């Protein structure tokens, strides 16, 4: 138990937080201990909500990235188109932007998978399994009621046992006191016989009382022993249902974690293949020599210069 010092504080249903964890180290069948199971159900509901919140935020971040990428790509391409750049260099410039824009599509796929296969699935799971009615989750309330029902008579029995134990022990105490007093009086030579016999009577009464209460107490214990198997079974039955409910939830979570994994994998993504293709094509098409020649033909030494020639005066 001491090794838990380094672990971060956990929720109430985990054993590490020993001091403030009311359920720790108690037996399940003890009164109100079933609340640990109820808390687990509630925790499950909160987990579903947390899951949705976490991954919705993730989707939002992706969408913002995609939007920024698209804006940047469009603005850059427009600017380059209108710039003073020319030739294959200009094309290569534009194409390299277009290629890197494919990443936006890849992330678009990621976010779509995230939304459809993970988040939306959790939303509908939560709706189906944790249907609410005004104040609480119906299912959980059901479990709670069933536990209470199973435990009701048991608690009454425990109270009876406690009371009868107190009664017996009170009786015993009085008996002991009386017996002690009797001894004292017996050995007191100056005591009256009247007193002695009164004392004897007292002891006898207390003895009877003690025996009666003891027998009642023992009887209650016997009753408890007889009732116990039924009680345990009833409690276990409800508990098993909560186990099944939790198992369902854990299974669902596992499924969705796997779906999330698939959502994030971009290894075989087709957009990235397109991107590589575009990059390669644009690099191959870049031709500095061609650009130089082109410019030369239009503005350079290959242009049609008019050279001075003798011009006769026309009438």
């Amino acid at each position: 138990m001491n090794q838990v010092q380094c672990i971060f504080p956990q929720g109430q249903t985990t054993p590490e937080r020993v001091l403030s964890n009311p359920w720790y180290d108690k037996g399940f069948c003890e009164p109100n201990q079933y609340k640990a199971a109820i808390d687990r159900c509630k925790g499950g509901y909160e987990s579903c909500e947390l899951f949705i919140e976490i991954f919705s935020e993730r989707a939002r971040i992706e969408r913002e990235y995609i939007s920024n990428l698209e804006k940047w790509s469009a603005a850059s391409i427009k600017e380059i188109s209108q710039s003073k750049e020319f030739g294959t260099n200009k094309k290569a410039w534009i194409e390299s932007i277009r290629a890197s824009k494919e990443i936006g599509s890849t992330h678009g796929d990621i976010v779509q998978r995230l939304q459809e296969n993970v988040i939306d699935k959790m939303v509908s799971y939560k709706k189906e399994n944790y249907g609410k009615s005004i104040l609480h989750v119906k299912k959980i309330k059901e479990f709670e009621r069933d536990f209470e029902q199973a435990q009701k008579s048991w608690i009454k029995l425990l109270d009876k046992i406690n009371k009868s134990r107190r009664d017996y022990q009170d009786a015993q105490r009085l008996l002991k006191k009386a017996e002690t007093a009797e001894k004292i009086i017996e050995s007191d030579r100056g005591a009256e016989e009247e007193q002695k016999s009164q004392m004897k009577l007292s002891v006898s009464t207390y003895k009877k009382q003690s025996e009666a209460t003891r027998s009642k107490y023992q009887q209650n214990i016997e009753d408890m022993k007889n009732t116990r198997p039924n009680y345990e079974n009833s409690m276990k039955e409800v508990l098993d249902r909560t186990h099944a409910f939790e198992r369902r939830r854990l299974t669902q979570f596992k499924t969705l974690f796997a779906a999330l994994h698939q959502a994030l994998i971009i290894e075989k993504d087709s957009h990235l293949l397109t991107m590589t293709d575009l990059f390669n094509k644009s690099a191959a098409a870049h031709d500095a020599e061609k650009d130089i020649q082109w410019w030369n033909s239009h503005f350079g030494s290959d242009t049609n210069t008019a050279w001075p020639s003798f011009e006769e005066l026309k009438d």
Partner: protein
Amino acid sequence: MNLFSRKSVIPPPSLSPSPSIGSAATAGPEAFANNSAYGRGFFEPGAYSIALKRCENGHDLAQQLADMYEERAQLELVYTNQLRAWSRKWHGELVKSQEYGTNKKVWDQSVTTGEQMADVHGILSSSLTDSLIPKLRQWRKDNYEKSLVHYKKTKEFEKDFIDAQKSWAKLLDKISEYKSSYYSACKTAKLADNAERTATEEQRRKLADKAEVARREVGFAKTKYEQAINEAREQRSSYETAMKNVFERTQTFERKRLDFFKETFDEYSKVIETATIDNPILKKMNEDYQASLNMHSSDQDLTWWDQNYGTQTNNRWPEYEEYRD
């Protein structure tokens, strides 16, 4: 004043200009030189300025390229930081949550993917910021050193063009001058002839002299004009050579820029591809995740819970407790 009779300029058939869009062409040779220089011969006076303009454009374009990459690096960084913050925030929340067991571990792993993807995009961003962009800026600085208002290189080219063109320009002026003189001599001679023809007996002699003088003037002026033309013809090849020399240097300068841009585009594509294809961090992310998924065990979690809070807990059952003094 139109000094030369100009042949129509036909663009070479092998390189067709891109279709111009509307009146303000954004592509093709028309766009390049704002229409004004298009259609002029390079060797004509002042036409070299287009080559100077191209040099200066190179600086602006390098700037544009760097700015563009800067913006990209920024948006990657924003994404990176958001992912990282997301990962850390929810890791903290998960630790405090009601979740338990292997389910919690897998959940934590799924949140860690944010951190790992942040690393990938962080590297993308810093590759641009720390490597590609500084290289670009340094190149720009090295090639476009400034001196007061102009770029040194451009000023150098300009000076050399002017030098190469100086005597040619003077020659053209001379031709222009002599041509004018010749033409006005012709006109004068014509007038003198007419005057002679329509003159009276007494004026005829005087006017005949005048006409004779005028005709002789025409001869002189024509000779001078022709000589100037010949001079131009002789000087033409050395002039062309001189201009070509300077021009070739601008071509080399431009080729250097084009090559550098190509290099930069290649590096950019590598940075992007590194981030997305066969990326080792993403590989590890997938492997880690898969490993944790494999460890997910509802049974284990439920059993653990049952042992700590369920039917396997140590129940204390009421027992007969004897009275003790």
